[in-house]
């Protein structure tokens, strides 16, 4: 219910209409209509406006320019005077229309994006090699970093070895000192004993 707006038979609106839902017009509208959804102009509906919508189905009378993101359909009972810009236009047998139709300019504004998308997709296949190259590069770079880390490890481990060496050397030094001191003690004892003998 809330997604359907109905402008009834006897209603006349002059002004701007903006919205994000379907709009069904059975009455009269003068002004601008901007919708991000579908405009249904019913048999009894009369719109004198510049219209910008996603889709439009015209069974009533439309006077003004209309621009649609997707498609415009003028049904058997529809009447329109004005210019159409839309990628897809359907004019049913029995419809009345006077004006210009441009099915390319909207494509020119819209399709380049699609083309860009497709051109993105195609290069994905072509560039897959280059991508793999890039990935290889990344791999190599990773490998480089890995080797760097390994190098770092290698750098680190000698440092640790050095540290261990220093510790061990300190131990050795201490041991040497102890032995030296022990020797000194023994010498002192010897001297003392000699002195005592004397």
């Amino acid at each position: 219910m809330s997604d359907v707006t109905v402008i009834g038979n006897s209603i006349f609106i002059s002004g701007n209409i903006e919205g994000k839902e379907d709009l069904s017009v059975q009455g009269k509208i003068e002004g601008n209509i901007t919708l991000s959804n579908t405009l249904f102009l019913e048999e009894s509906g009369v719109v004198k406006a510049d219209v910008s919508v996603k889709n439009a189905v015209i069974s009533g009378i439309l006077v003004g320019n209309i621009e649609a993101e997707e498609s415009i359909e003028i049904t058997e009972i529809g009447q329109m005077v004005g210019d159409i810009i839309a990628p897809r236009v359907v004019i049913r047998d029995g419809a009345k229309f006077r004006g210009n139709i441009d099915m390319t300019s909207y494509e020119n504004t819209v399709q380049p994006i699609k083309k860009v998308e497709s051109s993105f997709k195609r290069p994905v296949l072509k560039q897959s090699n280059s991508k793999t190259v890039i990935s290889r590069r990344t791999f190599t770079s990773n490998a480089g970093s890995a080797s760097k880390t390994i190098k770092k490890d290698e750098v680190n481990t000698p440092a640790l070895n050095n540290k261990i060496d220093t510790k061990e050397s300190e131990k050795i030094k201490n041991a040497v000192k102890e032995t030296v001191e022990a020797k000194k003690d023994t010498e002192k004892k010897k001297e003392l004993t000699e002195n005592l003998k004397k």
Partner: protein
Amino acid sequence: MSNTIIGQTLVIDGEIVGDESLTILGTVKGRIELNNKLLVENEGSVEADIIVDNITVNGTVTGNVDAREKIEIESTGQMIGDIRTPKLSIKEGAIFKGQIDMVME
């Protein structure tokens, strides 16, 4: 008579004139003139001078209202503006600011 509905996401800036009942869930700015009933739902927001037969306000209305029969401001309704009507009901919880002129006949 078919009922006209202005949906939630719709914004109308201008004038609405008609003979049938109108339900507003969206936003209307400008002027509304109806020979019928106007219903402003909870989500509805109206900034307009209004001339109608009946009006029921569940949402927000800012502007002067001239009703030929009745104005009802429901408990969720908010209304700022001057009122002219023979019958008026303001429910508990409703918010109203403005002048009231109840037409004596």
